[in-house]
């Protein structure tokens, strides 16, 4: 499978990729995007099976990235990995079509629990 990781922090993208590995999801193709606009573009060209996106990013936020995808008819499974994990944010994410919201700081166990239903 192919996973697109969108975060404006290169360091955080590396940590997300490392955590995927630690959670047992090795061997998947990883594509990186540096903001929501880049992510939206790469969903069209790379056709990932899952998007893991930060929320708070320049150019296009994660929630606008998700809404634009769904607005264009794209139903790629989408989850947030973000520093804000309030109930309000979780509700907004869910209403927009996100499968889950993982709050930073996170553990490999949280990744495993959230991603297993998607990646198997």
């Amino acid at each position, binding site marked *: 499978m192919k996973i697109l990781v969108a975060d*404006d*922090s290169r360091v*955080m993208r590396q940590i997300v990729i490392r955590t995927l590995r630690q959670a047992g999801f090795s061997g998947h193709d990883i594509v990186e995007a540096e903001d929501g606009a880049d992510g939206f573009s790469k969903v069209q060209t790379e056709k990932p099976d899952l998007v893991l996106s930060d929320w*708070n990013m320049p150019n296009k936020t994660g929630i606008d990235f998700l809404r634009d995808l769904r607005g264009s008819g794209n139903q790629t499974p989408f989850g947030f990995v973000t*520093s804000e994990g309030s109930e309000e944010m979780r509700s907004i994410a869910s209403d927009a079509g996100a499968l889950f919201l993982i709050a*930073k700081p*996170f553990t490999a166990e949280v990744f495993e629990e959230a991603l297993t239903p998607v990646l198997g």
Partner: protein
Amino acid sequence: MTTGTAPDPALVHAAFEQVWGSMLFTAFEPWPADAVPELGPGVQAQIELRGDWNGRIILTCDTEVATQIAGAMLGAPAEEVLPDDDVHDAVGEVLNVVGGSVKGALGGVMSLGLPGVTEATSPPSPDSSIIISWYGAPVFVEVVPDAA
């Protein structure tokens, strides 16, 4: 205009403690009360909170400490030389995660800015800072409301 209450120092302290353990894999240790914190050439990261309370959380530390923090986040070998961009990125992300925790706990704060990182021009006042010990070097954390 700020109408809400500033983040409780205990809340900020707890957010850093969580980040230290789960992102930096390092025990959180407060700065010893009887030691004088000294800061060499350093970096300063800040993030804005906007809503019922308006202000910034600011983190200041030595460049060497910032480099070690970045290395701890990335799990990089001690001898690996990290580019400045990654060091700034890592310190900013520490503050981003802390800001997210504080925002969630505060309520009424509507938005969190993007972290910005610059060279530190002067050391913060120890009296107005939470000081964390990073292997014997100080990391200053300030919660600064907007000027009235």
